[in-house]
């Protein structure tokens, strides 16, 4: 019964996939190779697949100005780790409240979470900035970490996961054993949630790491700059003609993400696919 697909069509499929693969990889390949080439070399021929020997020189030019990759990396790491920890822990706790307990406002609260899921963070940024400015929290990482406690999307996913994979008998039997509710959550439920927490942690971390808008308006002191703000410095006048150094700076910001992505790509792809359950 099965019809055969023509060879020509199959070839077409692979050609399209190959073109898209080149499209995905090429910009980054040019970037990495140019990071090793001198500005003069880049000016003569901006595309090359042969690395040159100016890697160290470019790094020195880059860090000799305002670009401090170590500082940016550390700042981003502190903020993203803090925000991720807040998001996954408190979202799990909130989802737990929604799934395990039978309370009057449970349904209204869930509807509320669904409704606020769509509130875009950028449209409240002016009020947020003014609020932080008044309580002297600009240039304070906590202003970027603490809001992560309320992450409606993550609550939604954790709730979905709990509904399908958290047996309520576990909670019941913990009660029989005399475990307090909070203790049960921390020591019995959290370990069961590990797979879902891991997925949500990856996305939360990447989102926080890549965020430009809020850090850009809140962090005005150079020693507080995150990686994306550091990157935006490359657009400024100080690096105008230092092509090699610009590619170097870009490469440094992409490198940690590449490492994380290729180690975890399987989980990330699976996590994205999970997102469609929402629809």
């Amino acid at each position, binding site marked *: 019964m*099965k*019809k055969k*697909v023509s060879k020509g069509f*199959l070839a077409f*499929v692979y050609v399209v*996939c190959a073109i898209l*693969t080149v499209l*995905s990889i090429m910009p*980054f390949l*040019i*970037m990495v190779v140019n990071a090793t080439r001198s500005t003069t070399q*880049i*000016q003569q021929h*901006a*595309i090359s697949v042969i690395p040159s020997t100016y890697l160290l020189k470019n790094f020195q030019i880059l860090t000799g100005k305002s670009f401090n990759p170590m500082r940016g990396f550390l700042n981003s790491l502190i903020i993203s780790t803090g925000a991720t920890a807040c998001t996954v822990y408190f979202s799990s706790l*909130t989802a*737990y*409240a*929604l799934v*395990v*307990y*039978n*309370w*009057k406002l449970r349904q209204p609260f869930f509807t509320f979470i669904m409704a606020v899921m*769509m*509130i*875009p963070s*950028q*449209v*409240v*940024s*002016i*009020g*947020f900035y*003014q*609020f932080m400015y*008044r309580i002297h929290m600009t240039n304070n990482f906590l202003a970027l970490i603490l809001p992560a*406690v*309320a992450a409606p999307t993550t*609550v939604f996913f954790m709730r979905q996961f709990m509904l399908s994979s958290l047996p309520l008998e576990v909670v019941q039997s913990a009660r029989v054993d005399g475990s307090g*509710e909070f203790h049960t*959550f921390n020591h019995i439920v959290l370990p069961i949630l590990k797979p879902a927490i891991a997925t949500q942690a990856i996305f939360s971390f990447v989102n926080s*790491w*890549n965020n430009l*808008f809020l850090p850009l*308006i809140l962090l005005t002191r150079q020693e507080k700059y995150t990686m994306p703000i550091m*990157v*935006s410095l*490359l*657009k400024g006048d100080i690096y105008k003609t230092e*092509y090699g150094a*610009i590619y170097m700076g*870009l490469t440094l910001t*992409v490198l940690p993400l590449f490492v994380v992505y290729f180690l975890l*790509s399987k989980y*990330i*792809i699976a996590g994205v*696919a*999970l997102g*469609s359950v929402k629809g």
Partner: protein
Amino acid sequence: MKTKKLSYARYGYIFSIPFVVAFCVFTLYPVIFTVALGFTDFKGLGATTFHFLADDPFKNFRAILTAPTFQTALKNTFIMWGMNFLPQILLALVLAAWFSGTLFKVKGQGFFKVVFYMPNIITAATIAILFGALFGYPMGPMNDLVTSLGLAKDPIFFFQNKWVAKGVVAFIQFWMWYGYTMIILISGILGMSPEWFEAAELDGATGWQKFFYITLPNLRTIIIYTLVTSLIGGLQMFDIPKLLVLNSGPDNATLTASVFIYNQAFSGSYMYNRASAASMIMFAIICVLSAIVFVLLQDKSEVQARKELKRAAKAARKGRGIGA
């Protein structure tokens, strides 16, 4: 037994406290604050005092709505979003159909998925500056390519053309997001019952027919969901238009609503009041658009639930009939 259950209920409230507190402090209060600021004369770097505009409360809103730059920004935002979304959803649909098809198996699927999705997790700020460098003038990889292929004699100043600037912003958005959309659609297709396809095959349906009569209609909900999330994200487009071309290119070609709001509040004369008014207008637009789609989604799932209930009831009746 019943009293015991009731005594646990309070933990529902207790465990929700951190979320509610954080939400009230970091989202609700800033929302109210932003709304309020829209009705004041609050501006200037470092200023802390403001007065409500008692005699003309909607002055800022009127000023924003009639400002040609805001209209341009709004128009640009929708145009660039559309230029990215249409090809994005089309390509994602085609790839999803190929990757989840039953007629042939694309070898190396796992690899392709990983590669197509990759741009999505890279920092948008980095990508914006990378593309700015790739399209650099007079010396950039794109110009190198164009001149060595003989397509142009002299290097081209790409971003001097309004539509090229817009097109590159849209292309980057497309390039960053089609992989994501594709994966969402694939999982949607894989969630469909294989029996539908088998039945269609028995009836002699071709691959195209199956795609148009089974796959596409059943993906409706997911496509609408993708549309909403993409729209909400697209209306807030900031990193790429802000960093790709300096000062939004010729004639504000790549100025978006978010960049406009940022410029109002954090540069020039620091007009927090105008920026707040613009934010609220954007908020209203987003709310209206999401509400429309939310209603569409709600109906669909309800209709489906009702259908399923009917089917179950029918089956039960039939079962009883046979049993009797």
